Every structure is written in C-alpha cells, then in structure tokens.
C-alpha cells in the first residue's frame, strides 16, 4: 500500500515538474519579445480587443480582502476604473480579488506578467508586496493607493505611483459638521486598526470639532479590526450610552456596526447620528423607517484618483515615483453629496472652512504631535 502511495506522490511531482518546465519554456520568451507577448495575451483575451486598437491600453487593479463590493475604497476604486473603461472603450479594465494577504504578491505578479499597462494595488497593506513585484518587473508600471512605497535607497520606487489623500482635511470638515450638530457637547470617533493613516482621520476630526468649539469632548476608540461589525456596534453602544450623540468612524466594515447601533437607538426615539467614511455611505447604509441616521460622510475620491492616474498613464504621463496627494483642492476629499440631514448653517461653515484650508489659513494636523500643537494654538 505504501508503495502505491509513493508511486502516486512521485508521479504527481513528476507531472508537476514536467508541466512546470513547459511553463518555463513559454516564459523565457517574455523579456526578449515583450510586444509579441502582449499581442498573444490580447488575442487570448477575446474578440472585443480585436475590434479596437491592437496595442490596447490596459488598466487593472488588485483588491485587498474586502473585494470590489466592500462599500468602501475597493468599490470606489473599481467605480473609477469602470468609468475610465466607459470613457475610453478601447481600454481594457479588470480586477482580481484577494482572499487573504498571501494572495497579494501572486495577484500583482499575475497582472504584471499579463503585460498590464498600469496595475493598481488598492490599500496600504500591499506595500511590501508591490515593492518586491515592482522591483522584479522594472519595465512595468504600478500604482498604490493610500501609502508611499520606498525603495532600498529611501526614495520612492520609480515605477510605482503613490496615491495618497488628505484625509485629515476631509475629516476636519465632518468634524465641523459634528461640532455644529451636537446637542450633548460630546462626539465620538471609532478607528479601525491604529496606524498613521487612521490617525490622520482621528486628528483631522478632532481638530475640526475643537476649532468650532473647544469645549466639546471627543471620545476616541479603536476597534483594532476593520471587519468586525459586532465590535463596532459594541463600541458605538458604549459611546452613545456615555453621552456622545454623533460618532464618526474610519473603520471599514467595523463601522457597519455603528450604523446598526445608531438605527436601533433612533428607533427608540433617541437623537443620535453617525458619520460615514470613504464613500457617500448614506446611499447604502443607515436607512430606517423615518429617515437615515447618517448625518454626512467624509468621501475620499479613490475613483477620481484611479481615473486620473489611468488617464495620465494612457497619455504617456505615468507619475512613477511621485507622491500624489489628492486633497480638498483637487476634489480628492470632501463631504458627501447627500446632505439632507445637515443644517444650512453647518454647510455654510463647511464651505468657509474649506476655503480657509485651501488658502492655508488653517493647517490641519495629521499626527498626534501636530494635533497637540494645533490644540495649544487655539
């Protein structure tokens, strides 16, 4: 019996090696004849390609574990690519979803190997993997959202475009809205995993609140998880019970628990609100029989950024090695279109502050130290 097992095992391995060797043979041609390889891929892709340009531009993305329907930045990025594909029908857009962190590197590699003109990595979790893949595929173009990828020489890697957002500026504006709407003089902030990125949301929000009224208390708590709605609900429950009436979240899926809790309390006649993040969350969340518990959302236009970078790259202006920050000025961040629950007064204030930030009159803090300086300067 054991012999038979060994036979099976060795034949599986032998078959694997043989097949793998065939694969290697194909692969050898890639660096020598890149253009040929491209064409080959395109004919394999299907007939829609054949109708258009034979050197069709392709822009594809690798999602993180949230997938393209995470109601957050993966979805937003895909919306940007879809819009790009609609405006430029000859361009090929697509995505690959990652099931867990170990998928990042193979997925990025897969797109690079297909000869994708620009490969987007959605989310800072892919930082290390995109660095390695970009260094191994120096003639390919990449972009990453939400972080800056440094090479071994402490310079941004030359074939990666770094897309970042001024989240602190957008968070400042929703902080202003929260400060003008609170009746208990206490608001809350729920963060996902504590990191420099989420700190930008926290500090911007706190700065916005305090700038309007420094007596308002801001209760901050981190769930240490981006996908734990029940934890989010628990934290929201504690905060609302403790006296906060408006809570802002920067916690991805964890934030969905905040909305559940807010709806429960609204049904019981309490006057509580939630503030969404990344997308106009009032469109998909927070609905209940008598309205919506989402006051407003801090939107991060990942779609806008992905669209712009794709367009630039197609026109031959790939911003490789550059750090792009999409702020209030570029419409990269801001408050959501849905403003039914926001008072006119607050909207006016937001517009004023927006101008002040763009003019440089207000310098919104990003880190804890900057926030302390900011607070003492008030």
């Amino acid at each position: 019996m054991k012999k038979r097992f060994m036979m099976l095992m060795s034949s599986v391995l032998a078959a694997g090696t043989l097949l793998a060797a065939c694969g290697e043979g194909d692969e050898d041609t890639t660096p020598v004849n890149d253009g040929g390889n491209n064409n080959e891929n395109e004919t394999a892709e299907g007939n829609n390609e054949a109708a258009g340009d034979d050197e069709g531009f392709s822009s594809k993305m690798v999602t993180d574990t949230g997938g393209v329907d995470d109601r957050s930045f993966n979805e937003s990025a895909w919306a940007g690519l879809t819009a790009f594909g609609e405006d430029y029908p000859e361009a090929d857009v697509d995505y690959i979803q990652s099931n867990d962190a170990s998928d990042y590197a193979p997925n990025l590699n897969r797109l690079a190997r297909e000869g994708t003109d620009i490969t987007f990595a959605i989310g800072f979790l892919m930082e290390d993997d995109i660095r390695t893949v970009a260094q191994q595929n120096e003639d390919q173009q990449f972009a990453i959202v939400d972080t800056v990828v440094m090479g071994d020489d402490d310079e941004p890697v030359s074939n990666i475009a770094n897309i970042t957002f001024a989240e602190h500026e957008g968070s400042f504006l929703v902080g202003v809205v929260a400060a003008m709407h609170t009746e208990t003089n206490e608001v809350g902030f729920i963060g996902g995993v504590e990191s420099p990125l989420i700190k930008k949301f926290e500090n911007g929000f706190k700065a916005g609140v305090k700038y309007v009224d420094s007596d308002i208390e801001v209760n901050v708590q981190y769930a240490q998880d981006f996908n734990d709605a029940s934890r989010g609900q628990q934290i929201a429950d504690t905060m609302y019970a403790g006296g906060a009436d408006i809570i802002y979240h920067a916690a991805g899926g964890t934030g969905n628990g905040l909305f559940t809790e807010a709806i429960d309390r609204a049904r019981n006649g309490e006057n509580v609100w939630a503030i969404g993040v990344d997308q106009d969350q009032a469109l998909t969340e927070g609905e209940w029989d008598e309205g919506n518990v989402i006051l407003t959302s801090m939107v991060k236009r990942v779609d806008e950024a992905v669209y712009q970078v794709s367009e630039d790259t197609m026109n031959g202006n790939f911003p490789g090695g550059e750090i792009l920050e999409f702020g209030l000025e570029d419409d990269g961040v801001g408050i959501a279109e849905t403003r039914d629950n926001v008072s006119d007064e607050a909207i006016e204030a937001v517009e004023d502050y927006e101008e002040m930030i763009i003019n440089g009159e207000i310098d919104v803090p990003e880190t804890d130290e900057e926030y302390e300086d900011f607070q003492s300067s008030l």
Partner: protein
Amino acid sequence: MTNMFKGKLFGIMIPLIAIGFGFLAGGIIMLISGNNPITGYVALIQGIFGDIYYFGETLQRMTPLIFSGLAVAFAFRTGLLNIGVEGQLIVGWFVSVLVGIVIEAPMIIHLPLAILGGALAGALWGFVPGVLKARFQVHEVIVTIMMNYIAMHVVNHFIRNYMLESGQRTAFINDSASLSSDYLSAITDFSRLHWGFLIAIAACFLMWFILWKTKKGFELRSVGYNKHASSYAGMNVNLNIILSMSVSGAFAGVGGAMVGLGTYNYANILPGFTNLGFDGIAVALLGSSTSIGIFLSAFLFGGLKEGANNMQGQAGVAPELVEIIIALIIFFVASSYLIRWIYSRVQSKKEGK
C-alpha cells in the same frame, strides 16, 4: 476479499471520491452561475501548473499547510482535537520573527534558533490546553479555540506597541535567519518558494517516524484508540495527552516560522485569522491523518488557493466558488459514511446480478 483490505482500499478511495464529488458539484454550481466549468477548471489547472512562477507559489502555499495538517493529525492520533493550530501557528510566526530580528548570529546558529523559537512558542500554546485537559478535564476544543484569540490579540499587541516598523508590520528579519532562497526563487521565476518546503517534507517523515517507529509513538496512538485500556496497560495517559498537545503545537509553531522566516520575512498585525491553521484541520481530515496523505492534500489545498486567483482573471469565476469547492470536498470527506453506504449499495447490486 478480506475485510481489512476493504478498509484500506476505502481509506484511499474515500478522499478521492470526495474530491471528485467536490469538483463535480463545483462544476454544477459554475454552470448554474453562468460560467463554463471547463474553462474554469482549465484556468484553475493553468493557475497551478501553467507557469513555473505559479507552481513555485503553490509549493510555497502548501508549506505551512503541511505543518498545520501534521499538527492536527498528531493530536488526532492521540484522540485530541487541536482546533488551536491557528493560534499556535501565529505565536510560532511571531516568536521566530522576533528571534530573527533581535539576535545576531551566524546562519548556522541563528536559523535553527529562530525555528526552534517558533516551535517552543507553539508547543507552549499547545501545552496549556494539554495540561488543562489532563489535569482538570477541561475540553481541549474550547480551550484551544479561546487560545487562538489570545494568540492573535497578544501578538498584535506586541507588534503594534513594540515592533511596528512601517504600516502594519515589524522590521525585516536578519538575513542569517531567513529561509528565503535566491536559488529556489530564481528557478521558479521570482516566486516566494523557500527552503521551508524541504523542512516540511522532512517534518512529514518525522511525524511518521515518531508515531509509528518509536515506543512513545505507540503509546500516543494507544491512548488515542482507548484511554482506559492504555491506562490499564500501565501507560501514563495524562502525560501522553500533554505531550501530544505540545508536539502538535510545536508542529504548528514551526509552520508559523516557515511563514515568518520564509514567505514574508516579517510579522504583521493580523486583521483576522490567517486560516492556515483552520485549513490544517481540513488537510488532516482529507489526508486521513497520514504523512503522505497530508502532503498530497496540502498540495491540493495550496493549488486550489493559488489557482483560484487565475480562475478569476482568466475565466471570470468568482473566487468564492473555489472556497465553495473546498468546502464541498470537506463535506464529502466528512460524510464518508454516505460514500461508504452508496458504494456498498452499488457493490451489492453488482453481486446480486
């Protein structure tokens, strides 16, 4: 035909039939959801063998799965259900990376030390439920599940507060503790295949040797078959339970070390479980807790996970479908009774004719 032969034959047939049923059901689901199952499966196979890079990644992926499968199987042979492989793997990952970063030593000392660190951490994480089971009759399933959460949050705490380097991860380990191999990477076209794969093969032999060729292994298996009889025969059942959980944890810890020292060369804040440990339960079940079976089923699971990504890219099949196929395979393995029953019905019909 003797009964014993029948039993052994079934031992091989059931996993194979289960895999077949799993793929068949997966194909039907693809048809229902409007995909072409043949295109889908061709893309899956190409995603494993179609490129030397993918094949290297498949082997890289199966490395920790072998260890977690061995860990589950080892405890299972002693009649214990170690659901805590996930947590043992996480602490093993963390401690091996910690040793890899903090200590400076030549490779010949450093690398074994880092792996040993992972093994000890995993063993400790298995030792606790082992003691609780042996001394206080606390069910190991509950304790190990809880230990998983403790492992994840404690490790996240240490990384976040003491070792955070960039974003979500620690610094890279020193080269002298790294299992990464330029050679293996080069022959697989830059995949992350590392020396850990060979260690995993060695571990398969090690488990087989311990369980089947040593006196202790006989005792462990004996406790698994019948505690009371073993006790009556003069074996120390409690000691064997603790030993089994610790060794099982050590296997899992080394699995974590493979991920930390080989694949990533760092540890990172885990937003959730890695699932490597939980998949180990399926690997062990499908491999019917034998070394060779575990090796093959780890290859199957690693390949399915790697090929899944190609299914999306090339055939447009949702990645969730591959998860469904894996789940179906486990379902059919678990319902081996059903397969046995159907088989015997078919057999008796044939005989009837």
